[in-house]
């Protein structure tokens, strides 16, 4: 079996308050940016290893997601009509949640070596431009000393992510 890279996105159910998103929305307002209408956040897990889809689903469902308040999705994170900013640690920076995730995967009984990286994704709805999101990312979302960020435009056509799109060789 080939080594595959999977991207798991974990996010709050719509009926649950996303406190982090609300804090970001307020902080954006404090920056003097008034064009953001809505913010969502999600946690990202990038898993690399010889993992079957069934194992990934099990990891996502049993380990990474709190089934009461959260849902997960495999693949590139996106929301219809929303810009997104992904933030990841730079290579070599200690990623403690990733370390714990790797250990917890072993505890699940999945003995394949898996390399994990964690990141965060922020979705923004509103009349936005890329340079506004770069300003927001620099001021609030990423510390470029240890993190990198990438701004993504709203997708056209794809809805709620393609579950297969996270699976790459």
């Amino acid at each position, binding site marked *: 079996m080939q080594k595959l890279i999977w991207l798991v996105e974990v996010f709050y159910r719509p009926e649950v308050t996303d406190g982090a998103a609300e804090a970001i929305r307020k902080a954006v307002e404090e920056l003097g940016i008034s064009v953001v209408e809505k913010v969502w956040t999600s946690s990202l897990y990038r898993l690399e290893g010889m993992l079957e889809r069934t194992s990934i689903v099990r990891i996502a469902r049993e380990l990474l997601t709190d089934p009461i308040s959260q849902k997960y999705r495999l693949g590139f994170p996106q929301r219809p009509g929303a810009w997104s900013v992904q933030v990841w640690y730079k290579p*070599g920076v200690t*990623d*403690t949640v990733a*370390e*714990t995730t790797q250990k917890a995967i072993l505890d699940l009984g999945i003995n394949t070596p898996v390399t994990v990286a964690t990141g965060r994704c922020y979705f923004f709805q509103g009349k936005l431009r890329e340079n506004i999101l770069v300003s927001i990312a620099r*001021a609030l979302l990423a*510390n470029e*000393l240890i993190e990198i960020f990438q701004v993504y435009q709203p997708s056209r056509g794809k809805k709620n992510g393609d579950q297969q799109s996270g699976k790459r060789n």
Partner: protein
Amino acid sequence: MVTSSQVKEINLLKASESELVALSQKHLLSLDLKEMKAIQRHFQRLGRNPTDCELETIAQTWSEHCVHKTFKAVINYHDGLEKRTRKVVCLNEIARVTRRLRKRWCLSVFQDNAGIIEFTDGWAVAFKVETHNHPSALEPYGGAGTGVGGVIRDILGVGLGAKPILNTDVFCFGPLDFSAEELPEGVLHPRRIFKGVVSGVRDYGNRMGIPTANGAIIFDPGYVYNCLVFCGTVGIMPENKIFKKVSVGDLIVVAGGRTGRDGIHGATFSSASLNKNIPTSVVQIGNPIVEKKLLDVLMVARDLNLYRAITDCGAGGLSSAIGEMARDTGAVVWLERVPLKYADLAPWEIWLSESQERMVLAVPPENEERLVSLFQNEDVEATVIGQFTDSGQLLLKYHDHTVGELNLNFLHHGLPRRKLQAYFHPRPPARITPENVEWKETLRQLLTDPVIASKEVVIRQYDHEVQAQTIIKPLTGVEQSGPSDAVVLKPLAESWAGVVVGCGINPFYGEIDPYAMAGCSLEEAIRNVVCVGGDPFRVALLDNFCWGETSQPESLGRLVRCVEGCRDFALAYGAPFISGKDSLNNYFRKEDGSVSSIPPTLLISALSTIPDVRKACTSDLKKPGNNIYLCGVTREEFGGSRYYHLFHCPGGQVPLPRPAETRPLMKKLYQAIRNRWVAACHDCSEGGFIVALSEMVIGGTWGAEVDLTKVNGQPLKIDACLFSESQGRFIVEVEQEHQEKFESLMEGQPVGLVGRVLPESFLTVKLGQEILFQFTIQELARSWKGAIGW
């Protein structure tokens, strides 16, 4: 195999002076020319160049962070007050206090990772406060979190290890509403630093299961470029575990987290100033879960006597930890055995890495198997990486190749002592005073001053209940909304004895008079202890100096003046220093070459005991009808006060503690609290008497009426009665049935019956019969609690 890319020889022998300076800069060694030349001479005598491992080890061991060069320097100090020049060594001045006071309850001072005092029934308590300023300025969450993790490890590594029972946190930030446009590139906004630092401290402490229950937060534009993050930990240990000694033949065991490239050059970096060109590698990220497992297994191993000595891996990583442990013996280290996070680390990186959550133990060979197996069972890695020898040499091996061999005597005693110049000139008194002051509006504005305002938004994020030992918590009163002066813990199930921890910090005084600042910080820490019922005659102190550019004689002169204040007032209060730490070079060099330094800052932390926690006292008003006394003398002392700050009045007379007046008062007050005659007690600090009384009203949700003509120290102007920050003052609530006994006990003391607690929901301030102003409790609470948002 060792390749040339893994071990480099540094061409030092023939380097010119300018090349030596360039070498120090290129390798981020933070060593000056004199120090580089001492190293050069040492290797010239050996007839060879140093390896990168060796040079880096020396730089770490000789860093300001590890060896406190400025505090040990001989300073030619010109005192503008005495108009004479004399030689001063700052560290000696601090240590002199402890030597002269000779308190038998001080069990271990200035020699280990933390100071230790006697507690009760064969138990001792240890206390250490560290700073993590530079890392927190760059990566607030990780920097503050690892600050907490680091000081916890200090406590794990004191003696044979203490169990952490309390974390403290004191921060200095730029104003939260600071204009973002004024920030240069690479400097994070104070609000972002504030949130990141608080979150970092919260997550590390909470996840470790240690209550964070005492602290302070200061806001001032002087901290925009360099925030200050003080993290403290108190631990408890059996008295028979307070000393350690390495024996030749003991195995060197590294336990806990794995080693990566993170945090390399932390010690030398923290000894330098900040600028925008900072490498990623200096940032450390902590993992409290790993440290929690390490803590738990260490306590078991300690009680099984499986190791003879222990220390933490802090700044400088293994190089500092093993270099220090092997100081009187020698050691051989097999670097290839150190467990790594990833494979491609060069030997010097393994040796220098400041990866978190690691401890180093000296384990007798016969205990190796038991220790390693115990750690394995608890899912903590413990690996033998070397052995202590009698060679007096630190020998570093990597796959059978020698990558470094250093003489320990040179490493620990070869550092040339610095000779520095300093002078101090007192500032001229201020000539501007506030005019046409509207008392009620001034009080309202003071309550919303972020320095004074409630820190509930921060405090509530910390778990201050975990371990179920916290008797007096950070917030007090019926609605848990008033401020506590100090924290009281009851760490032993079988004893009512308690540990009391308070702190004092006021950099605003230091800007004008660093000597008075030292006295005020020290007295405030002791006052806080007294307010909750702690023993004022059994207070141990910790000093944490954070200073700007000490290479400037004027800045260094203020430091000397502050140190002398610490010495004089600690002696006067009979309170020995048991531990301390300095963080110098807290300045930022801007692109245009100009320098922004922090205000001179001194944190004094106080550790005391209370014989019976059931007699502890809080600050919230308890019952209508009770008397309110203001103990202590009020003077017109406004220099550095929040009142003068509000009206933009620089200078002025900084409050000066008067130990001869305050010590007897503290003694009587301690007795009154022990006799349970005191219903509530709160000290007057920032904002003065009326702010302190407002806090008591908010906590108790009872009204109060006070008459300013009854304030001791007459004749006084109204603003002095309300807002002067004179030291040595306590507001005390006493039930009427205890009035006679209390007043009789206090006879001869400057104590004024200034008012009483009322059932109405008003704070009424009168001048004789005239009502100056009234505030509803709701108005007070709204102002005080609403000023700092998250």
